[in-house]
């Protein structure tokens, strides 16, 4: 079970809802992923296009815990406002704090992320900050009371996979709250490696939404996260530089 604040989840795969070509594919991918937590963004309504479809209408919201993000925010104040707007819907009290500090890499602004996290925790939100793979920052976010830490595997949407497993492991080993590897996952093996490192969950979007077959990829990600978690729990063998035969030497029928 994945425990975040007062909530518990069977699935350790968190799925983003952006970039799908159509709502039908999105719904099927969400179903195939087995995800119980869905992320989404908050944006201005086009008031001249009443009746424009919305992905929320396609989903049975009772089945999911909604995790709005503060994407688009460049300051703590903007992130706090977006989070409060989302909460005013009455549909959610969790928030993914996302304060981008670099337009090219979409890496988070650590100072503003820290400020926004602190403010939102005071306001009673369940806060999951998106952060870099910096262990010191992760610890500071945990000290504030964050309910989970979400370090990037690599830049958002890059599909680069886990570029610094060592730093992710530092965060996993040195924090007590759930660590959810967020952003940069490209393939099921990336998700599985994150889980084998000991992550508590994986959040991804582009890898599924932009796959050739998003529904099949959603299932692949589900299975990869489950396999990675099982592998982590089972405990891998140590790496050795020499071979060790798997078949016994005794009783060899050769002259």
């Amino acid at each position, binding site marked *: 079970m994945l425990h975040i604040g007062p909530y518990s989840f069977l699935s350790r795969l968190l799925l983003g*809802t952006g970039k799908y070509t159509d709502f039908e594919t999105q719904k099927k991918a969400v179903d195939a992923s087995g995800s119980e937590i869905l992320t989404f963004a*908050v944006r201005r309504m086009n008031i001249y296009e009443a009746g424009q479809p919305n992905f929320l209408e396609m989903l049975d919201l009772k089945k999911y815990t909604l995790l709005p993000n503060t994407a688009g925010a460049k300051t703590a104040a903007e992130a706090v406002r977006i989070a409060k707007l989302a909460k005013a819907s009455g549909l959610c009290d969790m928030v993914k704090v996302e304060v981008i500090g670099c337009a090219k890499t979409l890496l988070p602004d650590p100072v503003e992320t820290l400020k926004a996290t602190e403010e939102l925790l005071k306001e009673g939100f369940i806060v999951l900050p998106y952060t870099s793979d910096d262990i010191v920052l992760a610890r500071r976010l945990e000290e504030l009371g964050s309910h989970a830490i979400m370090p990037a595997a690599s830049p958002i949407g890059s599909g680069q996979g886990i570029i610094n497993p060592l730093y992710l492991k530092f965060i996993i080993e040195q924090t007590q709250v759930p660590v959810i590897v967020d952003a940069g996952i490209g393939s099921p093996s990336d998700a599985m490696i994150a889980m084998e490192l000991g992550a508590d969950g994986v959040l991804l979007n*582009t890898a599924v939404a932009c796959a050739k077959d998003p529904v099949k990829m959603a299932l692949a990600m589900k299975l990869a996260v489950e396999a990675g978690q099982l592998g982590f729990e089972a405990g891998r063998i140590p790496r050795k530089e020499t071979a060790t035969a798997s078949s016994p030497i005794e009783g060899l029928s050769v002259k």
Partner: protein
Amino acid sequence: MKLKINGDEVQVPDALQSVTELLEHLKLNDQMIIAEVNEKIIQNEEQNNKQIKEDDRIELVRFVGGG
């Protein structure tokens, strides 16, 4: 009545009194819309009680796909 909605000046009937009535006028009442009036966020259950008046600055936002 003149309002500023999402940055645009919009003329709406003077008879509209609440955020809920504004959303009905805009035919947005069947959607999950979050409103902010003069930079004050309105809890969804309060939309019916929130009065609107000339020159109010109103933000209407909703959830969209995102990661």
